């Protein structure tokens, strides 16, 4: 069964190739190919998962080499896959959520002229993402990594007629590539030091050769972190993600919520040994995660575009994952990655259904009262929102977020300070989530509903609603239920784990209680501000300091302006003034001088014999004087 592994990425690639090469297929065929390729790989992934759980391969991993890729002088990365618990979780998420979103897109994109192009890109994306998580060496990982970046670029700019979309797409590609530069340099460093780029060998040799806390480990970890920050939209490279919402909504759900943006989390979890060797890098990850989850959460509070709320919320939830990684809670990070993929995809898709029904209206302040008109969308959106806000007991988000919270508390790398910040973030999450729910579905109706979602969209929403409610069941808290299926499983791939010291049950109960109460209070505050007394929130937003704060948060803390002034403008200015290449002037001056001399010399050729005679005599005299005077 495991030998079918290569088919999982190969099938979406085959779908992509077919869609690119066969021009002008009917829409039904396009949708069938697009969905079937991913659906088949999802089925194979499930089969392999079943086999992996029932009879694990020796050493709890399976590798498959297709061919040696680049081979020269001791450097021989292969087109080779490494399947272990970590990559298994990722491929299940990617193919599962990917398949559902393909199905959803078949209806969502129905009226679009670029139907075939859309599915080709989407298939290519799924293929690249699978290569990314299955790669057994960093070079192949980079292939997937850049491949998903390309697809993200293509899909953000899918509606290419609007130059704004093109700008957003380029921004996403360039900003993530800035992070990739760090990652590349990190890989060169790893190869120079350890002589391999095979991931497991790198981790093994680093563990043997590098002292914990050594400068080299720190450098390697920080450089890899640079790549992860770009891809996962963490401070200070987060600015591209809100703009990436220019793409079609299924793209936002698949690439910019469920899968691609989690690649950074995966990368750090994959290279956890390097980070364990560099405590300072771990601390950096935790601090960046905390700062990101707070700033992005506050920004989400100020948005009026429903997709931008979700985008900032994604950045913020990724911040939670980074915080978990930073305190060494690898499985908590991966758990949240999984549940977040489910409920955030659900939220995006439900929002997409809304947007479609309202003829591409995305402003929440022009929605309202949709609870009655679009009941399925409302209920599924609410289920997603409950998970995102981590309301107690219901929804998978509660379990994964609580796991992060108490791992942060008990981890030697974490502590109460990080815990408090994360708790504050949870309250903010609850606030902006229910602000979104109340603005869209409650109050008075402001826009007419034009179309209602059809069968495919509804089915996908319902499946995701079920998954995001019960998906948390794979891991239940120590204090009740005590299911550790997920973390035990992940333990086979990611060694170290935050261990629970005995006798902390009372503390954990208390932490759980505090968090639950505060989150519920946050939701109630949102209800008070946007349903009970809507004029209150309006008055705050319109007051002079309130408006300033709102503008600041709306613009994402002014990062774009800083980068424009520091990087973009100087670069375009330098490009503009030196369009004609200043170096060429050196040669132009040489040529000009030669010509000028030529003109001067030819001036002497007057053709007048008397002048020649005078010059000749004068010259002879000068020479004679020189000769005699010496």
């Amino acid at each position, binding site marked *: 069964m495991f030998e079918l592994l290569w088919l999982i990425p190969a099938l979406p690639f085959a779908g992509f190739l077919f869609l690119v090469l066969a021009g002008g297929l009917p829409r039904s065929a396009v949708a069938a190919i697009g969905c079937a390729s991913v659906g088949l790989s999802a089925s194979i992934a499930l089969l392999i998962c079943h086999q992996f759980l029932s009879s694990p391969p020796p050493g709890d991993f399976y590798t498959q080499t297709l061919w040696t890729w680049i081979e020269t002088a001791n450097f021989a990365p292969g087109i080779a896959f490494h399947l272990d618990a970590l990559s298994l979780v990722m491929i299940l998420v990617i193919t599962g959520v990917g398949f559902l979103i393909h199905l959803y897109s078949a209806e969502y994109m129905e009226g679009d002229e670029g139907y075939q192009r859309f599915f080709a890109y989407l298939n290519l994306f799924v293929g690249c993402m699978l290569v990314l998580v299955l790669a057994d060496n960093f070079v192949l990982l980079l292939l997937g990594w850049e491949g998903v970046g390309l697809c993200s670029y293509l899909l953000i700019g899918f509606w290419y007629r609007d130059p704004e979309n093109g700008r957003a797409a380029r921004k996403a590609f360039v900003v993530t590539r800035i992070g990739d*530069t760090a990652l590349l340099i990190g890989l060169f460093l790893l190869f120079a030091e350890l*002589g391999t780029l095979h991931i497991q060998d790198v981790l093994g040799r680093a563990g043997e050769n590098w002292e914990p806390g050594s400068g080299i480990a720190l450098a390697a970890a920080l450089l890899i972190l640079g790549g992860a920050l770009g891809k996962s939209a963490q401070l200070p490279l987060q600015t591209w993600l809100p703009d990436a919402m220019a793409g079609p909504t299924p793209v936002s759900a698949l690439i910019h919520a469920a899968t691609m943006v989690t690649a950074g989390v995966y990368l750090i979890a994959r290279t956890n040994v390097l980070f364990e060797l560099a405590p300072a890098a771990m601390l950096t990850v935790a601090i960046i995660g905390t700062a990101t989850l707070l700033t992005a959460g506050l920004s989400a509070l100020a948005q009026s575009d429903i997709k931008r709320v979700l985008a900032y919320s994604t950045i913020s939830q990724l911040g939670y994952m980074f915080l978990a990684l930073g305190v060494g809670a690898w499985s908590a990070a991966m758990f949240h990655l999984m549940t977040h993929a489910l409920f955030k995809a659900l939220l995006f898709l439900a929002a997409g259904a809304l947007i479609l029904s309202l003829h591409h209206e995305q402003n929440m302040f022009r929605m309202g009262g949709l609870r009655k008109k679009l009941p399925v969308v409302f209920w599924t959106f609410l289920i997603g929102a409950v998970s995102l806000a981590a309301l107690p007991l219901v929804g998978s988000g509660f379990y994964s977020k609580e796991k992060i919270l108490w791992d942060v508390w008990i981890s030697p790398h974490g502590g109460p300070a990080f815990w408090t910040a994360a708790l504050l973030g949870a309250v903010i999450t609850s606030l902006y989530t229910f602000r979104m729910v109340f603005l869209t579905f409650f109050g008075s109706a402001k826009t007419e509903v034009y179309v209602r979602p059809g069968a495919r969209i509804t089915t996908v929403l319902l499946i995701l609603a079920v998954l995001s409610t019960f998906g948390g069941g794979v891991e239940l808290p120590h204090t009740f239920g005590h299911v550790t299926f997920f973390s035990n499983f992940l333990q086979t791939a990611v060694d170290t784990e935050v261990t629970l010291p005995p006798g902390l049950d009372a503390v954990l109960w208390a932490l759980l209680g505090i968090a639950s109460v505060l989150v519920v209070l946050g939701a109630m505050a949102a209800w008070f501000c946007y349903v009970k007394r809507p004029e209150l929130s309006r008055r705050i937003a319109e007051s002079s300091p309130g408006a300033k704060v709102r503008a600041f948060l709306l613009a994402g803390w002014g990062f774009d302006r800083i980068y424009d002034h520091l990087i973009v403008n100087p670069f375009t200015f330098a490009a503009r003034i030196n369009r004609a290449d200043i170096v060429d002037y050196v040669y132009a001056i040489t040529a000009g001088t030669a010509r000028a001399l030529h003109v001067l010399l030819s001036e002497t050729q007057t053709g007048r014999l008397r002048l020649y005679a005078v010059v000749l005599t004068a010259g002879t005299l000068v020479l004679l004087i020189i000769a005699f005077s010496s």
Partner: protein
Amino acid sequence: MILLLLIAIPIIGGLAAWTAARWSPTAPRWIALGATAIPLVLALSLWGQGSASGGQWIATFDVPWIPAAGIDFHLAIDGLSLLLVLLTYLLGVLSVAVSWNSNENRPGFFFFNLLLILGGTTGVFIALDLFLFFFFWELMVLPMYFLIGIWGHENRNYAAIKFFLFTQASGLLLLIAILGLHFAHFAETGIHTFRYEDLLGTSFPPSLGMGLMLGFFIAFAVKLPAFPFHTWLADAHTEAPTAGSVILAGLLLKTGGYGLLRFVVPIFPEASAVFAPVAMTLGAIGILYGAKLAFAQSDLKRLVAYTSVSHMGFVLIGVFAWNTWAIQGVIVQMIAHGLSTGALFIIAGGIQDRLHTRDMNRMGGFWPHAPRMAALALFFAMASLGLPGLGNFVGEFLVLIGTFQKSIAVAVFATVGIVGATVYSLWIIQRVFHGEAGEATRIADLSVRETVVLSVLVVGLLGLGLYPRSVLQMSEPVASVLQAGAPSEPGVPGEARSDFRFHTFSPTAVHLQHSPPDVPVSIHAEKPVAAGFSASFSSAESDSTVTSGPQSKTHVPFIFP
């Protein structure tokens, strides 16, 4: 014999095409197609033999030419030369296909010039006598001058003369350097010779070595082109007809890279080692500066032209990093750049044929009208920005991995250049294919002929990107022999020399040619040589002491800055 044919067929074909034009206007292009396709097949037939015979040289051709001056008509082909000759004729066939209909104006003379350039380029890649090398080097220039000057665009005269002056000035330097090398060798041994293998072991006083090395270096750096000698390139590329741009970017630039690999570092190891920091700095500047200039252009061909400056910067730093990864990367990068930039010029030329403009301000929104062109342009733009899975990535990655071991700073700056490549590549797509339809609203999509031509290049880049092994295996022995710095006589197996692949440029390596063939070469390698090349560079770059590759160890001492 086959080597002679590789050069003779295009030259004879060129003369035939010129003559045949009197009788039929369509005959020249068929002759040209034959005169490029046959050598391509001949060169391919050498491929299989490469791995069979163990030595460096797959085939040789050696007859005396001017014995009194020690000049021989000496041709030899090894993996490096073979790859570049294959590239030459592949792009040759495609250039003929691209100019199939576009030259009503004196087609015979056009194809004569085209074929003469191909013959000259091939000669450059396989000549092993430096005098003969110089002869072919000059043979490439004049027909290219005509190609630009007669069939070029608006500003063709300026561009053609600029091209001619730059290459002639650098050619003069090359000639002086070759003669200097010849006499230095004569002074040392009393033998008049221009033979590459004989000249390899010449030793010089440091200042003379540096002077001669600079002569070679500047000549090749102008062709490459390296910053600050790059300014001829933008004009020449922009004004040349499509086939001319393809050959300029795809082949003529490669002769510069080839010269650096084959002559500069192997003949002048000590001087090159001293000069390496300067050369690598110039390479890094070229990468960044070229990318910035490319981004600033609104003329599509000019933009693509400047990307060559950026990409060839990788060749320059790779050559002077001089370890197996970097050399292999340089070779892959040269081939991949030939394919990807050639393709971009074909697309730019196709747009110009349709719209009669290269100004991107008048383009935009072509995607719906020309989806095939747009998709292919996107593919080649991605190759240009170094997307993994396509050829350029393999080249750049290997160069950077090799460079990092020599100089962290240069590798870091060069890596930043990849962001620059992203910016300009995406800019092409945005300005030409995305956005609202511009002034020129309708544009015809690629014809079948154009699609076939570009598809060949797509396959080439994908093959190079996903299965570069066949190319790397072809060039790996060459990479070792070049680094050994010692000559391997044609026909003498050179496999023993792979032992000291990383102990490059030890002064003792020069003595190898005097040692009896049965003495194990590794004895020399084990000497505690101050690893000439690497050591002297590291001392210049005090922050890094990484001197040898990971092959000889599992852990390299690393002093972190």
